[in-house]
């Protein structure tokens, strides 16, 4: 049915009585038979791959461009994107996957934030058969790959088959104002102690050492990573994230990290008013010249680089002992998934392979973003000095195996317990011991519920 015919029918219906209009619209314009029929009609017998994504901005643009190239190479395939905003995406995707009309391919989110519940519900496929065929299992370093593994029953994160294929990545570190560092006569710190000395110097000079937009509460946890990555062991951090009960949040290394955070706040290193400042606000202030350091993720690089040019630079938290490799929290972001309900899984796998090849990675990196691929010397020219620094930092943690997962992937209820408690610890409103015990209690409860 053409659009105008459909519109005419709708407008005819509108002239009926109020009750009839409501009834008729829901039947006449709403479902219009089943969506599947419409899908086939629109495609004229071609294959239509239904794809869901929460991406936006330049990443979305690149994803769509790449999908167009796929369609160009496969004239009988039409890619139909459903784009939802990041905030409401998890809830909407769950509904779509549980509906009678699920998509074929969907981008997820790591760990218990989204992938876990979907896999537990049997809505996503283990990708092992295709992984071997396309070489996905050898494409990524295991530290990165592990973030896409789940047991087949969906109860165990970090081990088992591969459930998602990543295409982009992120890492958390310190952006800094180059001019201010020079004025303060501070070099890029080579150890954690040097970093703390730099914070003290900045404070003494009347600068805001750490710009932080903590209204969203999770930024306090990201600041925590920058310390705990260097005080806690691989086993401890991976243990928390991947559900190892022998490791607990109350471990001395995490308590020490929490204490350091509270100490930094007590020493006046954190921006005044941070608790009522949004992350966007903090970024804007940093761009305008407030704050020496901005601890945050690589996803802010494009904006910072665009507005500050070479006046902003980046480093990972320096190690405790000089010369050790830097350790950092980062992720392979989101994975491409194939839904259990898809009737065209092989086509979906071919699409996913195309979307994650090095050609896409090169486009991504050339735009100042990160790719989960170890690109070696095939990396493209960097769009800015900042992008180059972040890319080098990311490649170093991949190569050294010092990439650590986000602690928030350990349970789905970060917003209720983890983030607010971490904010309280940072503010000195809660002791690290008591706060971390509270967080551990909530994690245990979640693990029990699996």
């Amino acid at each position, binding site marked *: 049915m053409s659009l105008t015919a459909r519109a005419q029918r709708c407008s005819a219906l509108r002239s009926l009585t109020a009750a009839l209009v409501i009834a008729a619209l829901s039947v006449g314009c709403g479902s219009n038979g089943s969506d599947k029929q419409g899908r086939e009609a629109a495609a004229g017998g071609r294959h239509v791959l239904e794809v869901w994504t929460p991406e936006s901005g330049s990443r979305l643009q690149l994803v769509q461009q790449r999908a167009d190239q796929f369609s160009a190479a496969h004239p009988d395939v039409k890619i139909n994107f459903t784009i939802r905003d990041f905030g409401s995406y*998890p809830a909407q995707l769950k509904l779509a996957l549980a509906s009678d009309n699920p998509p074929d391919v969907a981008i997820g989110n790591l760990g218990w934030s989204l992938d876990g519940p979907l896999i*537990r*519900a049997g809505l996503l496929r283990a990708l092992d058969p295709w992984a071997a065929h396309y070489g996905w299992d050898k494409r990524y370093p295991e530290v990165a790959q592990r973030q896409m593994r789940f047991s087949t029953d969906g109860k165990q994160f970090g081990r088992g088959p591969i459930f998602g294929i990543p295409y982009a990545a992120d890492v958390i570190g310190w952006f800094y104002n180059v001019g201010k560092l020079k004025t303060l006569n501070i070099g890029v710190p080579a150890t954690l102690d040097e970093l703390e000395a730099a914070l003290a110097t900045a404070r003494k000079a009347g600068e805001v050492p750490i710009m932080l937009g903590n209204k969203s509460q999770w930024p306090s946890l990201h600041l925590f990573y920058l310390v705990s990555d260097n005080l806690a062991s691989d086993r401890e951090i991976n243990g928390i994230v991947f559900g190892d009960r022998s490791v607990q949040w109350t471990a001395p290394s995490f308590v020490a990290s929490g204490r350091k955070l509270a100490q930094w706040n007590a020493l006046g290193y954190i921006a005044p*008013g941070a*608790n*009522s400042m949004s992350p966007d606000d903090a970024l804007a202030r940093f761009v305008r010249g407030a704050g020496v350091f901005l601890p945050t993720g690589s996803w802010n690089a494009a904006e910072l680089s665009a507005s500050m040019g070479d006046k902003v630079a980046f480093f990972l938290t320096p190690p405790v002992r000089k010369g050790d490799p830097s350790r950092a929290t980062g992720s392979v972001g989101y994975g491409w998934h194939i839904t259990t309900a898809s009737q065209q899984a092989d086509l979906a796998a071919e699409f996913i392979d195309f979307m994650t090849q090095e050609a896409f990675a090169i486009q991504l990196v050339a735009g100042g973003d990160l790719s989960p691929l170890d690109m070696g010397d095939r990396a493209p020219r960097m769009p800015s000095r900042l992008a180059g620094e972040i890319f080098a930092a990311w490649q170093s943690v991949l190569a050294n195996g010092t990439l650590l997962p986000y602690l928030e992937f350990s349970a789905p209820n970060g917003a209720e317990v983890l983030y607010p*408690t971490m904010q309280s610890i940072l503010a000195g409103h809660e002791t690290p011991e008591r706060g971390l015990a509270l967080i551990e209690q909530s994690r245990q409860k979640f693990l029990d519920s699996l």
Partner: protein
Amino acid sequence: MNGRGRTALPYLYLLPAFLFFTPFVLVPFVHTLGLSFYDWDGLTRATFTGFANYREAFESALVRSAFGHALVLIFFFGVLPVLLALPLAVSSTRARVPGGNALRTVIFLPQAISTVVVGVSWGWILALDGPLNAGLHALGLEWAAVDWLGSFTWALPSLGLVGTWTLIGLCVTLFFAGLQQIPGSLYDAAAVDGAGRWREFLAVTLPGLKGPITVALTVTVISALRAFDLVFVTTRGGPGTQTVVPGILIYRRAFEDGRLGSGAAIAVVLSIVVFAVTFLINRIADRRAP
């Protein structure tokens, strides 16, 4: 026949409202009630757990503190606006100021603004370097300038006062309308009996405003208990959990964490509290009837 028709007629009048009420209020409520007895992530099979969600809610310090915060908000959203609106309404009927109507419109205006806009605006006003603190600095009160919405001590009262500001206009408008209904003869009688202003207020005005006060308290107390949007926009429950209210917990558990049963249980408890409090307010008002 005639008698039977008479008994059916009122129900017939109620039917249209009932037809809308049923699918949009009654069915969802019963559904929520049912959900609250299950452990359900919205995806896998739900398991019946009896009162486990309720037990968890009552045992949880966070849930209890959320209801505690709602009680604090009742004071700021309900009690305070009523107390402040009474003298405002009474004095505005007495003194015929030029532009009185415009003034009343301005007082009512916050009620007409979307809560999100209210939240964003006040977030800006109350910021550490916002206009309020700038004013305090100008007055030489630097010591009093704090990060209002980011302070573990002041966030909840600040949020409460934003609610006071929003709801005071509604109360003034209700009371103003109520005052017009009080017969002038009662005031004349009071004057003849030699009642002073205060005596007149207690004997004539206050009893005459019983209805509007009941309505105002009911509406504002409900808005305090179900507060969500203002909190979500201004503090998201923070800092820490200082401004977490039941609505925030319901939203997070039901829509973010995949704990629909738990969210539903809190929602049911909240509904019961709302029913109980409004019942109480109306009951007290009835008992004081002359």
